[in-house]
């Protein structure tokens, strides 16, 4: 096959490209430039937006012996990922930009362009496994190395996208990948993993949001679950559901227990806090489902597991769909779940699909109003 290897400049994508080339594919490497001015988003050595990263990717391509180009995806990335991230936060939700980037950039804009240019597939260094199921459809499974599993951020991919994707690393533990990179002479073998959001250069998401959302719902009040005013804040987007630190509430709770953000109401700017128990969620509603293969039968409860955040725990659940609406009943309650996050549905190790959480149901109260 003619395949396009998306190379971030990190060790995973370099080994993925090398493996694809070794399997006999005709591989072309590309680095995605996601910022118009490559210095503006990130200045450290990690992440995916620096000149050093582009150079690391280029040197890896040299060693593998494949052609290499830089594709400018900065406009699409800004519109589809950065602006979306900002507007989600401004509306009190907690988005996952990596998921969004996979959905809109890597496996959409890049894949579509690749197909148009005559490539058969895109290869990336994501940790997930693709198999052909008995029905002939491509199935995506969790990675062998659960500590590196990235099927959660790939849960947005549809059958068409999966049919044009290769994830050569899914069957291998990360430590082995590093050894393999060293053996292949790839200079990035010991390069640290990136953890932060790639377009926030110093990892200070709060500070970055404060800068960008300066004139959005500036102030508001912090109240307890029963409506008592406890303090004021300078922007509801500074808070995430489940957050404990940095609340700066003068008076302690009556029972002396720490308090957590329970709810964010962006229009009035009200942030509700309360005890840890009040964070427990036993049900949620989600929208915009994307199914990897066949969609679940509408109205028929599906016993499955769900994952609610990257590297989060699995929860046993029952999922019921109704067109674009997805209802999730959690058999194992979850804590600190925020609208905007993705719920990814699994059948064993297989990804069934994903949807965006729009409302949560608190276990402690009979029902918290479904807001979004």
């Amino acid at each position, binding site marked *: 096959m003619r395949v396009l290897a998306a190379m971030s400049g990190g060790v995973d994508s370099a080994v993925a490209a090398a493996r694809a080339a070794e399997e006999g594919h005709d591989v072309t490497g590309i680095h995605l*430039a996601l910022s118009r001015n*490559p210095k503006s988003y990130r200045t450290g050595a990690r992440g995916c937006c620096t000149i050093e990263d582009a150079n690391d990717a280029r040197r890896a391509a040299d060693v593998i012996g494949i052609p290499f*180009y830089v594709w*400018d995806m900065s406009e699409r990335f800004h519109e589809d990922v950065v602006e979306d991230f900002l507007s989600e936060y401004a509306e009190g939700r907690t988005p996952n930009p990596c998921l969004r980037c996979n959905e809109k950039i890597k496996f959409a*804009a890049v894949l*579509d*362009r690749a197909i148009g*240019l005559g490539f058969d597939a895109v290869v990336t260094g994501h940790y997930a496994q693709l198999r052909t199921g008995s029905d002939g459809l491509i199935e995506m499974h969790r990675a062998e190395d659960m500590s590196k599993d990235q099927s959660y951020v790939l849960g947005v991919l549809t059958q*068409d996208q999966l049919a044009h994707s290769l994830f050569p690393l899914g069957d291998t533990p990360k430590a082995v990948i590093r050894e393999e990179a060293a053996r292949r002479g790839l200079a990035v073998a010991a390069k640290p993993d990136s953890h932060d959001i790639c377009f926030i250069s110093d990892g200070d998401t709060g500070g970055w949001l404060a800068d960008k959302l300066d004139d959005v719902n500036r102030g508001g009040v912090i109240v307890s679950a029963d409506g008592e005013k406890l303090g004021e804040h300078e922007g509801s987007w500074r808070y995430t559901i489940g957050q404990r630190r940095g609340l700066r509430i003068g008076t302690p709770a009556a029972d002396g227990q720490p308090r957590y953000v329970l709810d964010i109401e962006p229009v009035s700017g009200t942030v509700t806090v309360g005890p840890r128990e009040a964070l427990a969620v036993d049900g949620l509603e989600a929208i915009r489902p994307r199914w990897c293969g066949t969609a679940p039968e509408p109205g028929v409860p599906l016993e499955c597991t769900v994952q609610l955040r990257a590297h989060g725990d699995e929860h046993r659940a029952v999922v019921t769909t109704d067109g674009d609406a997805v209802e999730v009943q959690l058999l194992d309650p979850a804590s600190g779940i925020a609208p905007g996050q993705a719920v990814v549905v699994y059948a064993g190790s297989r990804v069934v699909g994903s949807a965006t959480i729009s409302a949560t149901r608190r276990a402690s109260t009979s029902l918290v109003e479904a807001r979004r």
Partner: protein
Amino acid sequence: MTVYLDHAATTPILPEAAAAMTAQLGRVGNASSLHASGRDARRLVEESRESIARALGCRPGEVVFTSGGTESDNLAIKGLFWSRRSQDPRRVRILSTPVEHHAVLDPLMWLATEGAKVELVGVDRLGRLDIDAFRAAVEADPESVALVSVMWANNEVGTVQPVRDVVEIAHAHGIPVHTDAVQALGQLPLDFAASGVDAMTVTGHKIGGPYGVGTLLVRRELQPTALLHGGGQERGIRSGTIDPPAIAGFAVACETAVARQGELAERLAGLRDALVSGVLREVPDAIHNGDPQPGPDHRLPGNAHLEFPGCEGDSLLMLLDARGIECSTGSACDAGVPQASHVLLAMGSSEEFARSSLRFSLGHTSSQADVDALVAAIGPVVERARNAALSSRSAR
């Protein structure tokens, strides 16, 4: 087989130049040393200087060796600005064009933060300086102009600038003129003295010489302030140990390129016309940029700049590269990100059009077979790039 159509980026070294250079690589001798080995090295450098002076129509003392085009441009722009302003503090304006190479534009933008008033006089649709606007800009306040810098021929679209008219207007007020002639040398007739310019940038690797060596030709009467201070080589304008092997190779390339210029220009103009008409036959809606009229006052004979509506330039480049055909999309930043060409934008092109163009540039090794290979490939490549642009634009 590689089809190399990017001679404006760099052109293969001439065998004569490589031989002259390699003959010197094993020899010892700092050209500033006083002993016999030093004198031998110095003699080689001075003989090279003399042959370059003969080839380019200047005096040997006007040849200041540098590391190449970027350094020569920086030395001319910053050095002449500083020295002219120190003679008269009213001289703070620099007049230039928006289609200059970044080696001129970026020093200008930097000087603007150091008190210079930079005025980029506009160009027309062909990329040629609006000479009336230029005259008006000079005459608005000639006393305040420190210098003028206008390139001889544009590196992207190949348009030749009216340097003679620029010199006439500037010299009427005693204002020195610098020109970047990096692309012109070897392709167009070039004579420093006859041109009237006061400083001229040329470089080795664009004419079949080695990388990393070039010169700023600068009139004896002008003493640009040095960028590099040290041993005082090159009239004290450019300190640094002289590189005899590179200079020897550069001198041979210069002589050879000038001697063969007429014949090369004629041959390249023929190949270029065949390339443009062949591509337009295969892709009828392609648009030719720059001056359509041939001749040394109009365009570089080896440059063909074409716009392919509906295509991304970098898709085209990648598809051609996969077929062994090498060309350029214009300027690229450090990371290799293609940027919309500032030259095309200055010529009135939209950002979208500016991103859909390719530059094919021919040189001394170009042949009809190169042109035929491109013409054979371009139709399917453009069709594929168009499909890719359409499919990546539509949302999934």
